[in-house]
């Protein structure tokens, strides 16, 4: 059966018979457009209704750094930092955000055989308001991206994000798909990447221990958040 090339798709590259290297096939978005006026930079950034919270965030009024004494006492170097970081690290409560297969391995980590309660992470909170770490376990699709970002924004600080599984690290086995976000670091800052399809519970535990180290060292992306792949140049 003949599949003739539709001339309106002429921006797709031709196949090179000798297998030589081509420039990547980038398909411009001529196929469809969205009705949402806010999407794809439709509205100017200042007019975006969701940015009220970001503007408030930028003023720094809501940021309460409870690790420091206030006012004149901030000159005292405190060991409260250490204690607070220890407290935070040893009771990181994850948000139940299992999307796909990695969620089963995440549940398996919570169950007695690989018991993550040893590190205090058993209470998987259903509400983002009570959670510390967002373990994104499973493929993130474009339809789910908005709810997930909303969940992440609803989490109070300090918060961390763990990308569990290949699909969240880079798109994984759905690399060429039309509806999968190629890695959640395109939409939110990630602190720990745990590769695997699915990663074994031991792998998830190792990733969470690395996260604990980040929390204690105050590394990671909070509070200086960056969005986008954070692999340094030259890698």
């Amino acid at each position: 059966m003949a599949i003739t090339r539709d001339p309106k798709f002429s921006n797709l590259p031709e196949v090179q018979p000798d297998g030589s290297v081509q420039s990547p096939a980038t398909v411009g978005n001529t196929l469809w457009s969205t009705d949402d006026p806010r999407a794809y930079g439709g509205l100017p950034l200042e007019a975006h209704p969701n940015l009220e919270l970001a503007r408030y965030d930028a003023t720094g009024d809501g940021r309460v750094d409870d690790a420091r004494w206030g006012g004149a006492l901030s000159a005292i170097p405190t060991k409260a930092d250490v204690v607070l970081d220890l407290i935070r690290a040893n009771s990181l409560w994850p948000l139940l955000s299992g999307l796909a297969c990695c969620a089963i391995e995440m549940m398996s980590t919570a169950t007695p055989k690989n018991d993550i309660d040893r590190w205090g992470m058993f209470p998987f909170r259903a509400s983002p308001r009570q959670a510390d770490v967002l373990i994104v376990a499973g493929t993130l699709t474009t339809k789910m991206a908005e709810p997930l970002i909303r969940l992440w924004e609803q989490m109070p600080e300090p918060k961390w994000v763990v990308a569990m599984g290949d699909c969240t690290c880079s798109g994984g086995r759905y690399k060429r798909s039309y509806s999968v976000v190629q890695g959640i670091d395109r939409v939110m800052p990630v602190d720990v990447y745990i590769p695997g399809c699915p990663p074994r519970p031991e792998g998830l535990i190792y990733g969470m221990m690395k996260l604990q180290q980040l929390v204690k060292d105050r590394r990671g992306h909070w509070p200086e958040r960056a969005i986008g792949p954070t692999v340094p140049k030259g890698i």
Partner: protein
Amino acid sequence: MDRRLAALLQEKFGERLLAPVRQRYDESEIRVALKDATDTLRTLHDDPAFRFEMLIDLCGVDTGEEMQVVYHLSSSTSGDWLRVIVPGLDRTAPRIASATFMWPGAEWMEREAYDMFGITFEGNRDLRRIYMPDDYRSYPLRKDFYLADDASRSPAAGVRNMERAGTPADATAATVLRKSPGV
């Protein structure tokens, strides 16, 4: 070859079949025209000789020249399985009557065929997108919807994956040619 079923189908639908009853491996297959589709399905469902009361699957197929809707029917009393192919839907505006009158469970399967191909099922009370967001405008499983780096049909026909555009600009022979096995 399930001769009993083939003979029965030939007898009931003789003039409506577009092709002789085929036997594909362990399943019989018939093709009916678009205008006869509903009557055929109703007969297959109601007639005591057939009693295909289970609709196993309903899907769309885009052959590149036309669209087809394929029904897989099964009987829970006899062990018969049947595939009904309805070819000849127009690729630009595919329309077919809905099967939800007989099988209300076909509603979502038709929604999926609509979402993926754009096939309109007349009579489906809930024909909207099911997988893609509601404002999506393409129909992903059509043959003219290309994935971003699949201009060719075979994965190894010379088109590199989007993420591997080629050797990096600062590559030297020393870095590209591997002499030792990796770690």
